[in-house]
């Protein structure tokens, strides 16, 4: 996982609420056995019609949004399936952060484990971001702060451990492996065995 300490990018906006992981990457793309190359499948059926032509008006089809690394999305982004292919596809496409008023639990957990930063903001800030697509944002991951172009600085909530892993670019398996003695002791001492 690549470390993420700061991020400076314009935004692209998908204002729809409850964008589920089937929208982020449809199930027919899940027959892969690797993590790579899923960017092409990102939002596939929203981006392309059934003949494979780009749908006019879908924000990601505007060439001016191609280098945006920050996605602003409607409330409850990433609901539905536990497929980690959703953050893999977002990352492969080029996103490093998603901003919403709420994220589904599994999506948020999956994102943080892959270096994709889910940022929760209040409704007023969210409304403003939705109304102003393409603005430049500066994110300081170490300080959990989001700077808007008008000078406002917003602190966003993030689990301390997840932030540590994100800014150091380390995965959590190493930490779990260090608990090996405690795990063995737990297995030996518990009052019943599964």
């Amino acid at each position, binding site marked *: 996982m690549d470390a993420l300490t700061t991020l400076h990018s314009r935004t692209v906006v998908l204002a729809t609420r409850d964008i589920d992981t089937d929208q982020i990457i449809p199930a027919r793309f899940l*027959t892969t056995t690797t993590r790579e190359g899923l960017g092409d499948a990102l939002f596939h059926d929203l981006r392309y019609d059934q003949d494979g032509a780009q749908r006019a008006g879908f924000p990601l089809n505007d060439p001016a949004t191609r280098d945006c690394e920050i996605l602003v999305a409607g409330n409850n982004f990433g609901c539905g399936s536990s497929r980690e292919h959703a953050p893999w596809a977002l990352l492969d496409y080029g996103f490093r952060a998603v901003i919403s008023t709420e994220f589904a639990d599994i999506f948020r957990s*999956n994102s943080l484990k892959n270096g994709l930063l889910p940022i929760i903001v209040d409704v007023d800030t969210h409304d403003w971001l939705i109304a102003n697509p393409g603005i430049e944002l500066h994110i300081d991951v170490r300080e959990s702060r989001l700077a808007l172009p008008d000078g406002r600085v917003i602190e966003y909530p993030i689990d301390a451990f997840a932030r540590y892993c994100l800014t150091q670019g380390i995965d959590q398996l190493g930490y779990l492996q260090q608990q090996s003695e405690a795990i063995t002791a737990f297995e030996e001492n518990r009052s019943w065995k599964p």
Partner: protein
Amino acid sequence: MSEAKTLFEKVWAEHVVVPETAATPAVLYIDLHLIHEVTTPQAFALLRERDLPVRRPDLTLATMDHSTPTTPVSSFRDLAVVGEGAANQIRQMEQNCRDFGIDLYGFGSEQRGIVHVIGPELGASQPGKTIVCGDSHTSTHGAFGALAFGIGTTEVGHVLATQCLLQRKPRSLAVNLTGQLPEGVSAKDVILAIIGEIGVDGGTGHVIEYRGEAIRSLDMESRMTICNMSIEAGARAGLIGPDDTTIEYLAGRPRVPQGDDWDAAVKRWKGLCSDEDADFDRSVSIDAAKLQPMVTFGTNPGMVVGVNDPVPDADDASFRKALEYMKVTPGKPMSENPVDVVFIGSCTNGRLSDLQDAARILEGRKVADGVRMLVVPGSQQIKKRAEELGLHRVFAEAGAEWRESGCSMCLGMNGDTVASGQLSVSTSNRNFEGRQGIGARTVLASPATAAASAVMGRVADPRTLN
């Protein structure tokens, strides 16, 4: 601070290996890890890369369900029906289980089936266990009073390697179902009504405990249907306190404790229910007596309405977009919509009692002209039992297709899909855009409502056919 604990708190506390701090999440021990072919290949690849074994293959249970064909498979050549990607995934699953010493209920196994159907069927899903799977519908196993939740592939790797997960403790939400369910109203109607009430994000960050008189009177298969869709309300998990119904269901199943161990387990299970004065972070009450058969009208499971009630309207872009996709009109009931496809199956409603509910409606009747009906049992065991009861003949005589077990048309990964623009009445769990096929329009319903809709050729109230 009261000493009284909820069921969730009891199960959580029993599995904490290292407590959480401000800086670090808890290390939580996992008693049962269910795995399937779609969300594991990258996790096994990580183990190979780091030269790690699976810590507890004995606590890992594997099957293949998502990308598998529902036509009979007698050799790998038959896998061509699901495409090269899916066939490759299936072959890798067999290889990974062989290499890492995990028991696989694969092709040819009489116990193969949807992962959330076979866990309970084998008696592996038990009260008080922590159960995870790379699949959001793992909440199903909460019906036994287990803490069961879906995880991503990275976490699948964590559990394979360490049998543990790093977790922050979720909050608790009590959903009280008071009164008794009216005749003709099923568990599926209950959970759709609950999701309609609290919303698709109403449970985010929470573990739901379903409580109350109406829950107590439900059998285990109905309880599984309810817990299964907890994730559709955004909840981390959904559980029900174990009681005599739970214990009777488990008795005699292959993976339950034997002899004295069984007696000890039963004693332990009986102490797991939430203490009477235990506190929940939130609670919601629903009057079961007022419920009716429910159907969805939009593109998420919270957009739900009584089968005969008018579709609501809202001045909201996301809401209008959903109605436009579904081609439904506000103010009119869903029962006016003609049906193209009916799907009976999935981890939500693919168990024996679900097939029986559908067969009761179909017996002596025909699927309407122009409607395709697919019946997919949740496991090979259910298929066998249904055939012993002659249900397959009822389905065939009515004009429905009878298949091998699998996830099938719930998510259309295996070639069982709904064509673009077609309306499908489905007993599955998600009516998301394109879930059952590109452009497919899905109406979620109970098995009885789905079967009645097949007969009537439009979305229909099953109570009119009894």
